């Protein structure tokens, strides 16, 4: 393993900064998120970030193209800013798994999202192995290994006084070789992962959900939901978006922005009909999507076990409690 003393992390970041935009977790007041690194930014590795890194590849608001009316025709202008090479440094296994899910959505099944692809192609993931699960973490129950992230280019380990790095892809290997001089090669044992306070048995849940569309349990669990978008915007895998335009006179631009299936008007159609008219349908849709539809379509769960939703939901809607209810539910 390649190691570097924790006190020398800045040197590593500075060296990487020459060719890459580095995004590191950073905490300001009580909000932690990924920010571009520069001298003076002290990365925050104590806990997982509140805001997931999905908005690095899938921004909350993104201009797509501009248009201008010229005589009788329209001029189109590409507006997406080409991102240079970047590294997401210090994301956890849950968030790396979420990027894997987003890759499946935006890059597979016949349509490639150009906006997402341009950013993803130029992004390397340096994933950080967790040592201390937070109160709301349950990634292990989902089948995610907190110490080994999927689709990581480099895996970072906390060795106590040092950081350890192992390449997990060709690109990662190449980069570590380039920075050879900063590291000390040695055999090192990463710190173990401490226990999880939340565990949930996922066995058979997607299969059972296939027949639970009309189950009365959805009425019960959806009653306390407020219908805000806190869970969806904090969720690392949620990817619904709306497309709208901003027009001033003869010119404007089209943009896309995050939307949430929890909003009451999310499925409202032009005639006024809304196939998900009440909270029950919307809550049911959210959990079926996470635990069943995505499994059916892509073969993996859309929940990463990061626990942000149940930590920040104003009424403590708990996906693990709902999974337990699903397991106990009588088949109708």
């Amino acid at each position, binding site marked *: 393993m390649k190691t570097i003393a924790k006190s020398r992390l800045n040197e590593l970041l500075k060296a990487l900064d020459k060719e890459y935009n580095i995004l590191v977790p950073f905490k300001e007041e009580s909000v932690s998120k990924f920010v571009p690194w520069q001298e003076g930014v002290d990365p925050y590795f104590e806990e997982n970030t509140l805001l997931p890194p999905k908005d690095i590849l899938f921004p909350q608001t993104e201009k797509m193209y501009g248009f201008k009316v010229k005589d009788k025709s329209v001029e189109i202008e590409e507006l997406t800013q080409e991102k240079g090479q970047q590294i997401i440094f210090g994301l956890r296994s849950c968030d790396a798994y979420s990027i894997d899910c987003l890759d499946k959505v935006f890059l597979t099944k016949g349509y490639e999202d150009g906006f997402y692809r341009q950013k993803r192609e130029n992004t390397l993931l340096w994933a950080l192995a967790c040592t201390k699960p937070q109160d709301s973490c349950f990634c292990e129950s989902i089948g995610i290994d907190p110490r080994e992230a999927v689709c990581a280019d480099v895996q970072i380990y906390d060795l106590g006084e040092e950081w350890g790095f192992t390449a997990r892809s060709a690109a990662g290997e190449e980069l570590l070789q380039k920075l050879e001089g900063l590291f000390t090669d040695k055999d090192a044992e990463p710190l173990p992962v401490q226990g999880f306070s939340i565990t949930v048995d996922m066995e058979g849940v997607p299969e059972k959900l296939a027949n639970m569309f009309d189950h009365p349990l959805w009425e*019960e669990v959806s009653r306390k939901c407020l219908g805000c978008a806190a869970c969806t915007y904090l969720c690392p895998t949620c990817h619904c978006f709306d497309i709208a335009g901003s027009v001033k006179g003869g010119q404007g631009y089209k943009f896309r922005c995050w939307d949430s299936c929890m909003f009451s008007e999310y499925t409202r159609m032009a005639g006024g009909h809304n196939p998900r008219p009440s909270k029950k349908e919307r809550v049911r849709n959210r959990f079926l999507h996470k635990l069943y539809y995505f499994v059916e379509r892509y073969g993996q769960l859309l929940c990463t076990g990061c626990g942000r939703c149940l930590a920040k939901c104003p009424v*403590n809607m708990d996906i693990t409690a709902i999974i337990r209810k699903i397991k106990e539910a009588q088949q109708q």
Partner: protein
Amino acid sequence: MNEISLQMREIARDLLSKNEVNLVLGWEKGSHWYKSAPLFINKVEDVDRLVFDEFCHNNLSKYLVDLAHHEAKVAIFVKGCDSRGINRLIQDNVIKREQVYVIGIPCRGLKDPDDAVGKKCGEPVKDAVKCQECRYPNPVVHDIMVGEQVNATARGQETAALIEKLEKMTQDERYNYWSRQFECCIRCYACRNVCPACSCRECIFDRAVPDWLGKANNLAENQFMHLTRAMHVAGRCIECGECERACPMNLPLMALNKKIIKDIEELFGENDAGIDPEKKPPLGHFELNDPEKFM
């Protein structure tokens, strides 16, 4: 607190088994020891899930907005602040007093769940900011009261101090402060959805026609949203502080709402929303001799 939980269960059991109500709104323990969540009970077997502890933050009166057309009476447990929400909804003609059976619980103040993250049960936890300046710990409307009345005690004044600090700043400093805050807003509308004063059948921000606000997240739209919401609830805010507590980004929303309340008191006299259901909200009526300082 335990004694109160037991009494809550007895009352709920009694009401449900006698069919006086067919739904009870209360709280139960959530995913962690420092989380208590809303609970809807319609079966007697479930009453033993009811608890009241220092993390029962949720203002259950908000749910009455959805239950306005419920076919039977609803029983609801309320703290001091929550009970003002019930009066608020009665004033707004959203519900009728006869539709609810109000069980009041005098509240000694709640703890801050964000401060409890990572701690073990029993370790000291800070008081919730929203409870620090509480003036109405005892429910102002109730059919029955559980527990002894409590004296209102000031436990701190974080919000009042922040408002004072902001008032002393220059215009540009204030603008920079609020801009920094609103840049962090993710427009999840948790603040609006948790607020009992926000009871519009169709919220201005949900309308597509006219298109007041889309979903794009930028500073200008965030400012528009918060300024508009602050003015729309002006004079009707019951100071429960749920908006600030629910906000995932910890925006200091009470520094906005309490400032408006302060201005209303200064300009138009004592006007506490939700205390007297007969009284009209400050912006819903007028006096002939209202101040006209700038006209």
